[in-house]
């Protein structure tokens, strides 16, 4: 069985907590990566950062908690956790570029075998370009991970030899979590682990000419 988005989010949450037993400063991109917050173990010490100027962001606000002055990067009303802080946009992005965030999880259209990320523009000539904080996050956090399905809607792999969509960042992705497995970007190729509903050989032929390595 392949992993659903909740199982992928749970795998990411597990790895954050394991890699950072004393807690971590983490930014979750808009969309599916926000699910990771629901799977962080109790007492993980993870502090969530939101680009619009807050640390220790709490869960989405219930209907009676909604405050229009308190939203996340996706403009969804959220809540405060004890120890939260607010800061302006320049300070928020200094936290990214300055290497102060431990982990960032982003969605993606494509990731190349050398860790290039394409996630802001689908390349269509009539699309309205919108980048937000994606380029700053992609090059800023110490570990930048991607959460996505391995195949696009046409069944084409999204881990590719070279991105064909416009780039968000160059060589910035360390790890890719997908429904069919988790992939580490390493100098010699891409290491596949935690395969779900597939085999190494199947993945290797699916992703070729990307060089798939065993753990």
């Amino acid at each position, binding site marked *: 069985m392949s992993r659903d988005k909740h199982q992928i989010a749970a795998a990411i949450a597990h790895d954050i907590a394991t890699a950072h037993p004393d807690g971590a400063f983490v930014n979750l991109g808009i969309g599916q990566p926000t699910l990771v917050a629901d799977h962080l173990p109790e007492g993980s010490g993870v502090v969530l950062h939101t680009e619009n100027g807050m640390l220790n962001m709490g869960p989405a606000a219930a209907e009676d908690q909604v405050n229009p002055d308190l939203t996340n990067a996706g403009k969804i009303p959220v809540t405060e956790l004890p120890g939260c802080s607010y800061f302006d946009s320049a300070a928020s992005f200094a936290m990214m570029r300055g290497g102060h965030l431990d982990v960032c999880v982003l969605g993606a259209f494509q990731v190349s075998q050398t860790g290039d990320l394409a996630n802001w*523009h689908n390349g269509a000539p009539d699309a309205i370009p919108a980048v937000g904080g994606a380029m700053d996050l992609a090059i800023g956090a110490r570990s930048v991970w991607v959460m996505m399905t391995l195949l696009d809607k046409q069944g084409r792999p999204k881990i590719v030899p070279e991105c064909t969509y416009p780039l968000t960042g160059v060589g910035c992705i360390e790890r890719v979590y997908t429904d069919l497995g988790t992939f580490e970007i390493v100098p010699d190729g891409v290491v596949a682990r935690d395969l779900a509903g597939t085999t190494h050989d199947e993945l290797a032929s699916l992703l070729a000419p990307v060089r798939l390595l065993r753990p």
Partner: protein
Amino acid sequence: MLTSYDDAVAGTADGSTVMVGGFGMAGMPVELIDALIRQGAKDLTIVSNNAGNGDTGLAALLAAGRVRKVVCSFPRQVDSWVFDGLYRAGEIELEVVPQGNLAERMRAAGAGIGAFYSPTGVGTPLAEGKEVREIDGRTYVLEMPIRADLALVKAHVADRLGNLVYRRTARNFGPVMCTAATTVAVQVDRVVEVGELDPESIVTPAIFVDRIVPADLVAEEEVA
């Protein structure tokens, strides 16, 4: 310092560059924008994180046909139909800037920095044509300051000198915009006497603020 919405935007010239605070609607200075619509300045360049939400605030200024160009990080949203329509009709120019570069370019303008090298956007279409430099083994792109003729900002409380505190994530671009514009107009929920704000908690010091519109005094008709 204390004034009305209309007086706060008086004298805005056609062709001005105007910074508009807010992340979506959080921190959007809606009443100051409405005053700018009444004031009538046109051919404006707007610098803001987004390009309007729904039909109010920045979206209303765009719908009024006053804006020539938008400089922002994220124009396309579920409720950005006003901008989307103008863009697709070729009636508005767009410069997309990564959000951190947008904030830092304003910060640079306000801090007197001539330009700066940023790692954000290197190797992407948004760095095309820009000077690139390697420093200590990392590649950076040269980014220029963004300054404005007018900044419209929303804060929570001001004192009568113009010291400001904000509320939660409505702060966002307000503090850097206050430093980067020739004239800074700020709407606040209420104004307090000098000395009532905790000096340790002031986010924007009064030196950066020119005009304050306190919603409480406007409601009581104490500012004309």
